[in-house]
């Protein structure tokens, strides 16, 4: 049997690229969504304080945009990473190995958790913040 190229199906490598970009975008946007509220609180409770707190919380009005971008990236990424390839990968090629998709999946699902946390925080804050 002749050696097959690293990816037998150009469509699946394109899907990998898109899902990979989606994963990176999702993670960055999720961190952005957390940075206005959850992140300053977490750092503050660890004793880290400073004028940066006010700067970060000033991002609050933009949080919906971060969440929207994250949701978009997650949607595209998950669609591409779970979609069955048009041509099945030949068993010995790189694209058939689960490792190529596992990292992308981990990052995407991690982003899902972070975005949910960022979003939920807005509603939970009055209950979890100590009373003045």
């Amino acid at each position: 049997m002749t050696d097959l190229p690293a990816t037998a199906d150009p469509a699946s490598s394109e899907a990998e690229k898109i899902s990979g970009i989606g994963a990176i975008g999702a993670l960055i946007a999720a961190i952005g969504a957390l940075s206005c509220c959850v992140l300053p609180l977490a750092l503050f409770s660890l004793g880290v304080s400073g004028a940066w707190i006010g700067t970060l919380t000033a991002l609050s009005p933009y949080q919906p945009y971060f969440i929207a971008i994250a949701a978009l990236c997650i949607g595209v990424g998950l669609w591409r990473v779970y979609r069955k390839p048009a041509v099945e990968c030949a068993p010995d090629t790189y694209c058939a190995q689960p490792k190529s998709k596992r990292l992308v999946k981990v990052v995407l699902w991690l982003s899902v958790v972070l975005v949910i946390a960022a979003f939920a925080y807005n509603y939970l804050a009055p209950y979890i913040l100590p009373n003045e």
Partner: protein
Amino acid sequence: MRNKSILFAFAALVLASSNAAAAERSVTLSVPGMNCPSCPFFVSKVLKKVTGVKTVKTSLKNRTAVVVFDDAKTDAAALTKATGSVGYKSTVSQ
């Protein structure tokens, strides 16, 4: 006898004057940057750390913090400096 009463009057005057200086004052700070769910928490925490502050009541809706403090121990300038130290500029509104 007369010296004793002078001494007593003097002591009473000293005590009265030092008590008069240690008065409780209330000031309302306007904190325009306090516009997120967590923001009042940070403002309140940092103000409470200022020596002499007795109570802090924040209002997210009005973006204000009402601070009751001992004016012998601190002043409004120290309060606005404290909020500034966590990134929330404030001004005394009344």
